[in-house]
């Protein structure tokens, strides 16, 4: 007897544990079956809700309070947040907003630049990223692991270090110009505030986050679906357009959202690879941070940016909801 029992516990340990836990949960309900207190299932949401409230809603409210507050110049321009909504003053916010359209509209060029850069960088990320992800998931069965490791390995080195490397590569006397010299572009000042350089920096920085979700989704598409497509007479290209691509659509949307949102707030790529001529929205915010009394304007800009990125976010939520309904 004892011998059998020990071997059984050893083998079935996971299952027995599960059973025990379930039994203990069932106990309060007695013999009539499972009984849970009213708070039991909702309580599972509590940690997440607490997290959101503490680290998102509360700080976001503070941003509102700073934006609609004032600053104390005698206290070195420290913010004086107005926490009570009835004290809120919209002067700084309105002034900040007006700089997008009134007079010389000094905030408009960085805004337009941001849209142009983010759009171009996202398109490049998508085209290049999809191709790489497709290759990794479909064609490269043997080297799949290697390709994945190669994709992820740059993330082990600090972004700052990698951009410093680009600074060296793109230097006027650097290797890139050396390679381009035979083509006649050898004298390009890549780091003197060129749009191309900043877009390249953005693509470089964010493309892994486009590849990974697309790869995960392509890798999960069942072979049988593609075979069915071919069986029903579709060519390879048609199978791609009518089976693979629609199935990877949610991953494409997720990838776009994951790369687009941080790009809108990016400022260090331009700080390191561009100049004031390529200032983005994030640079407007970081400039205010370095200035005495800039916190109110900084918070106003953060709110304006939040509204801007809310639009693609809402579109994404609507699309994923629709996809979930169709499934």
């Amino acid at each position: 007897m004892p011998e059998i029992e020990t071997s059984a516990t050893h083998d079935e340990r996971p299952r027995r544990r599960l059973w025990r836990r379930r039994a203990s949960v069932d106990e309060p309900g007695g013999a009539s079956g499972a009984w849970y207190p009213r708070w039991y299932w909702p309580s599972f949401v509590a940690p997440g809700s607490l997290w959101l409230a503490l680290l998102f809603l509360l700080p976001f409210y503070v941003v509102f309070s700073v934006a609609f507050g004032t600053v104390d110049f005698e206290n070195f321009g420290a913010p004086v947040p107005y926490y009570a909504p009835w004290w809120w003053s919209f002067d700084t916010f309105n002034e900040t907003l007006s700089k997008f359209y009134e007079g010389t509209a000094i905030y408009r060029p960085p805004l337009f630049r941001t849209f142009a850069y983010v759009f171009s960088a996202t398109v490049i990320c998508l085209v290049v990223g999809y191709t790489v992800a497709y290759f990794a998931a479909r064609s490269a069965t043997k080297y799949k692991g290697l390709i994945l490791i190669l994709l992820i390995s740059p993330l082990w080195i600090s972004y700052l270090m990698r951009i410093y490397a680009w600074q060296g590569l793109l230097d006027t006397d650097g290797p890139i110009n050396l390679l381009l010299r035979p083509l006649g572009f050898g004298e390009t000042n890549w780091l003197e505030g060129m749009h191309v350089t900043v877009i390249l920096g953005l693509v470089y920085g964010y493309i892994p986050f486009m590849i990974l979700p697309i790869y995960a989704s392509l890798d999960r598409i069942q072979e049988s679906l593609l075979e069915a497509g071919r069986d029903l007479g579709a060519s390879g290209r048609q199978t791609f357009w009518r089976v693979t691509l629609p199935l990877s659509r949610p991953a494409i949307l997720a990838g776009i959202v994951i790369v687009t949102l941080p790009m809108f707030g990016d400022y260090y790529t331009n700080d390191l690879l561009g100049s004031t001529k390529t200032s983005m929205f994030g640079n407007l915010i970081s400039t205010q941070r370095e200035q005495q009394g800039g916190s109110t304007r900084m918070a106003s800009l953060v709110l304006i940016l939040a509204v801007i990125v809310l639009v693609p976010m809402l579109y994404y939520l609507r699309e994923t909801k629709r996809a979930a309904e169709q499934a």
Partner: protein
Amino acid sequence: MIGRHPMENRWSRRQFLGRAAGGAVAMPSLAAILAACSKPGENAGGSGSGSASTEIPIATLENPVELPVTMDTIAADTPIESGPLVLYNWADYIHKKVVAEFEEEYGVDVEITTYNNMEEGIQKVANGQVTPDVFVPTVGYLRRLVQKDLLMPLQQELIPNMLASVWPSYSDPGPYYDLGWNYSVPYTIYTWGVAYRRDRVSDEDLAAQGWEALWNPEYAGAISLYDSYGDTIAVAILRNGSLDVNTGDPALIDAAKVAILETINDHEARLTINGVYAKLPAGDFTVAEAWSGDIVGAQWYLPRGTGTDVLGYWRPEPGQTMIGNDTLVVPAEAQRPRLAHEFINFMLDEQHGTDNFVNWNGYQPPFVSIQPDSLIDQGVVPENLSDAVVTEEMFADDLTPIELSPEVEAMWLDAWTEIKAGA
């Protein structure tokens, strides 16, 4: 029975976690409620909330200010604390070897924490994120630091080197911003000028151009301006022919802004912080707006095999440029005030201060013993950088950037925001 014990344990831990989380939520919201109850406009933009009863006026050369002493100095016989001494300083602004000598002499550690711009440094001291024993502010912030009771008055008996080494004018009557040196001692002195590569521009050529060199299309792509609104706007005002470097005139500020945008957009001028001491010696720039100390320090950054004679510094005629100094102070919250006094006295020692200046930092202390001629004769400062040496007479003639009033400061910042937005 065996099952109950861990259950109980878990419950108590959960209760504990719950209470801790509740406390974390309650504290900020309590603060928020309290803040919401008081009228927020009260301490906004008005007088400071420090205990100094009267508002200290902004100091100017014409109206020098004696900063009021509102708290006691430490007793002269306070025992020297054991370390570590916390020094809050600009990045790359003190010679590590001199710090090591202090550590050895006093048997303490020195922790150096750095800031990249004054706004960051001041904010962190003001809200207590950093509690240094010695801090290195620019003079424009001293008034408000004292107004907010953030500085400790100095026990002058513990700093005999102030009288032994430093120009007498710094102790009697004392500098315009701190008559009687109640709170500060001078750390370094410097002027504003143009640094250049002598292997690309001749001395005569640059002297003929002056500030205009920073607007010369010939050096397109190799022009550096400081990424610092106070300095660069003031230099653009000088370039535009005015000497009003603390101006509140919108037309002058606007003209300076237009000029800066012009050299950025048309001549690819760059806004940098290390342009003079690191990138000019590396050959990235040909001309640069410069603090004199940066170009003296630049000789330590030259590539191997490049002589110091490639570096040049042009200083305008007396009275046509700005001059200034940084200070050493002891914050009111300093944990080791006596050790801080010892450190200040140590840095004002002729040998240590000079070592800090000539062997790495490049920024000169206002010492009686430092004579421009002997510096050049001894080869400490290359002859081609003789203009970078600061003399006491320069302070009589040159322009002094002072603390700007909030209204004027806002105008300067608006102009700078536009420059940084790349309009």
